[in-house]
């Protein structure tokens, strides 16, 4: 399946990417699995490893790690929010 991934704030700066389009194998079917998949790129990408303080949204709604990722989803990763 094909998804769009967005990165924001300090995570965007750490990774050096604001967004990318990915084609995923069918085994990567949850937010947690996607994070693990990306963290395996190594280097800066280890910022996405399990246990790091990263939040996720799918199609612009906050989601937990077990939420299912579907074809054409827009998935965002970012640090805890600090607005207001």
């Amino acid at each position, binding site marked *: 399946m094909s998804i769009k991934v*967005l990165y*924001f*704030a*300090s995570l965007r700066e750490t990774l050096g990417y604001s967004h990318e389009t990915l084609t995923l194998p069918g085994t990567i079917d949850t937010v947690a699995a996607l994070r693990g998949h990306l963290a395996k790129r190594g280097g800066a990408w280890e910022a996405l490893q399990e246990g790091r303080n990263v939040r996720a*949204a799918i199609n*612009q*709604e*906050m989601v937990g790690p077990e939420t299912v990722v579907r074809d054409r989803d827009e998935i*965002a990763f*970012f*640090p*805890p*929010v*600090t*607005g*207001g």
Partner: protein
Amino acid sequence: MSRVSVQEADFDMAAETAALSAGRGDVGAVATFLGLVRADKLSGEGSEVTAMTLEHYPGMTEKSLEAIIVEAESRWSLLGVRVIHRHGRLLPGERIVFVGVASAHRGDAFAACEFIMDYLKTRAPFWKKEDTPEGGRWVDARESDDSAASRWET
């Protein structure tokens, strides 16, 4: 007028507050909150803040603020709500966020206004980066914001 605005431009708090009760006789209470850039805001130790840059997630910010308002309306009896959040580069003393809530009675207006701010602080995708003489630094999320938001969960 939309009740949520995410914008670079400054806003007119007087006009926004007045609009919440204009031309109606049922509003008895308007509670507002205004958040400003502090010059002495510290992420840990550090020096004076010379400017603040707010990044956000366009689209999701508006959706999340609208969802927070809908949640507030389900909890209290409200007659009008307005939320404005700025992004981009802001100087100390500049306005960041405005929340205004109109109701018949003050209890509902106060509670909903504080609830919206607490949820905004933990659920709306904005991130602050402070400029200091030593360079930029991302503001860390505060534990106290999580506990403020969790007060509202039953």
